[in-house]
C-alpha cells in the first residue's frame, strides 16, 4: 500500500504570535517555522504502518514556498521515502490545497492519504474532508487509531461525546488527531540519509492549479486582551470574592 502524506509549513507552535500594526496579518519575518504538529503525527503514522509492513512507500507532499523543502526534508528524515513540493509563494486556501492534492493523488494512486486534522495557522480543519469529497473517497477525520485490513481501514475518531470507530473502504482519507501517536525525533544518521532522498519540485501551473483566494482577508486584529486579576491569599478569600464580588457561586 502506498501512502501519501500532506505536510504544511507553519509558524512553530511555541512562537508568540504578534499581529502586524497595519492589521494585514501576523508577523512572519524572522519567526521560527516548523512542520504543522498534526502533520508530524500524520507522517509518524505512515512510517509506523510501513515499519509494520502495512505500507510500501510514503510520499510526502507540501504546497508552499521554496523553504517548505525543509519541512519535506524533516518528513524524509522521519522515514518517508520521497517528497513533492508544489512551489508557490501565493496564499493557498484549503479548497485550492485539496484540488492540488487531488491531481497529485490521481497521478500517484495512493491507497491512503493522511493529513493533519488542522493547520495551526489558519485553524481551518477542512482540507482532508474536501479532498475526500473531491475524490469521492471515504474520510476518517480526527483519528486516534488507524488499522488497515484487506480493502478497508478501521479508524477510531475523537468525537464530542467520546470515541467512534468507522470502517472505511480503501482508498481513503485519514486526518490525524493529537493522540494518534507520538512523533519520533529524527536521528542524525536518518537526517543524513534524508539528504539523499529525492524531492521533486512542481510548478503549480503544470497541475492546472488556481490559487485565487475565495476568501479575502479584510483585516487581522488582536483579540480583546484579558486583564489579569488579583491573587487571593486563601480559599476563604477566594470563596468570598466568588460570592460577593463576582457573584458566580
Amino acid at each position, binding site marked *: 500500500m502506498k501512502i501519501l502524506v500532506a505536510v504544511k509549513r507553519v509558524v512553530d507552535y511555541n512562537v508568540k504570535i504578534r499581529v502586524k500594526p497595519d492589521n494585514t496579518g501576523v508577523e512572519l519575518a524572522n519567526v521560527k517555522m516548523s512542520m504543522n504538529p498534526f502533520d508530524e503525527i500524520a507522517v509518524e503514522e505512515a512510517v509506523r504502518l510501513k515499519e509494520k509492513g502495512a505500507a510500501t512507500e510514503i510520499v510526502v507532499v507540501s504546497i508552499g514556498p521554496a523553504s517548505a523543502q525543509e519541512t519535506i526534508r524533516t518528513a524524509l528524515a522521519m522515514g518517508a521515502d520521497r517528497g513533492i513540493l508544489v512551489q508557490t509563494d501565493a496564499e493557498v486556501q484549503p479548497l485550492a490545497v485539496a484540488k492540488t492534492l487531488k491531481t497529485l493523488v490521481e497521478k500517484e494512486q495512493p491507497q491512503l492519504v493522511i493529513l493533519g486534522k488542522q493547520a495551526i495557522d489558519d485553524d481551518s480543519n477542512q482540507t482532508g474532508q*474536501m479532498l475526500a469529497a473531491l475524490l469521492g473517497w471515504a474520510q476518517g*477525520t480526527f483519528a486516534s487509531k488507524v488499522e488497515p485490513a484487506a480493502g478497508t481501514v478501521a479508524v477510531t475518531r475523537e468525537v464530542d461525546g467520546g470515541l*467512534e470507530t*468507522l470502517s472505511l473502504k480503501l482508498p481513503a482519507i485519514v486526518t490525524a488527531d493529537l493522540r494518534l501517536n507520538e512523533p519520533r525525533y529524527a536521528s542524525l544518521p536518518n537526517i543524513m540519509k534524508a539528504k539523499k532522498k529525492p524531492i521533486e519540485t512542481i510548478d503549480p501551473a503544470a497541475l492546472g492549479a488556481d490559487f485565487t483566494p*475565495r476568501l479575502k482577508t479584510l483585516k487581522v486584529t488582536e483579540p480583546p486582551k484579558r486583564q489579569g*486579576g488579583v491573587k487571593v491569599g486563601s480559599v476563604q478569600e*477566594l470563596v468570598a470574592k466568588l460570592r460577593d464580588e463576582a457573584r458566580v457561586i
Partner: protein
Amino acid sequence: MSILVIAEPSTGDVKKPTLTTLGAAAKIGGTADVLVLGQGVAAAADATAKVAGVGTVLVADAAEYAHALAENVAPLVAAAVKAGGYGHVLFAATTFGKNVAPRVAALLDVQPISEISAVVSADTFERPIYAGNAVATVQSADAVKVVTVRGTAFEAVAATGGSGSVTALAATGEAGLSSFVSAELTKSERPELTSARVIVSGGRGMQSGDNFHMLDTLADKLGAAVGASRAAVDAGFVPNDYQVGQTGKIVAPELYIAVGISGAIQHLAGMKDSKVIVAINKDEEAPIFQIADYGLVADLFKAVPELTEAVSK
C-alpha cells in the same frame, strides 16, 4: 436568499449547538430553515419546528443517516442547498459540523469559513486564527457561504415559541464508502462541557485519574462540568472528550476553575472567553495567572478539598 441550518444530530430534543447556530443565522438575517437528519427523527423534527424563528424544517429520515456518516450526509445537504437555492449553509462547529461542512463545501465548489465568532455582514465574518491569538475578518466571494459557528460566540435562540412547518426530504442513498462499527461514549450525570455554567478543569498537576474524583466532588457541589488539559487527557487521567483548548472543546462558562493547569496558549484558546476565571496552581509564575481573575497560589491537594468544604457551607 435564505439560510439553511444543519441540525446537530439528535433523536429527541433540539441540541444546544443547533440553537446557537440559529442565533448566528439571526445575525445574518432572513429566515432560517433547518435540516434534521438521522433515523427515527420525527420527534426531533417536531421539536425543531417549535424553535423560535424557524421557517421550514426539512426532515431526512433514513437508515443511511443513522450515524451521520459524512459520506452519506454531505450529498444530502448539497442536494438540499441546490434545490432550495440557499445562500448560506450553517453548521455548529462541533465534531459533526467540522467533519461534514467541508465535505459539503467541496461538493458545491465553495471555500468554507470555519468557526465564525462574529457576523459582520451577510458575506463577511470574523474568525479566530493562530489558536485565537489573532482574529481575521474574512469576506467570501462564493455564491453559497458554508460556515461553521463557534457556539460560545452567539446567543442561543429560544427552544420554544416558533411554529415552523415540517417537510420530508428525499433521501440520497447509501454511498457505500464507510460504515459505523462502534462507539465508546463517555457517560456522565454532569452538565455537558460546552453548555455548563461552571467548569472545573484539571491538568497534569492532578497526577492521576483517581485524583480527578476530587474535582468531581467539587463539581457536584457547584453543579459544574469537569474538563481537562491535553496533558491530563494524554496521560490517561480522563477521556478525550474532556479536553478544553485549541483542538479540544471551546468553552465560555460563567466560572472556569483551572486546577493544576499551567496555561499554555493552546489551552487558553479554549477557555479564555469564560466570564470569571479562577486558577489554582502552586507555581506563582504559571502563565494561567496572567489571565485569571482570581489566582490562588497553593498546593491543589490542600486547596481543592478546602474549597469543596467552603462552597458547601
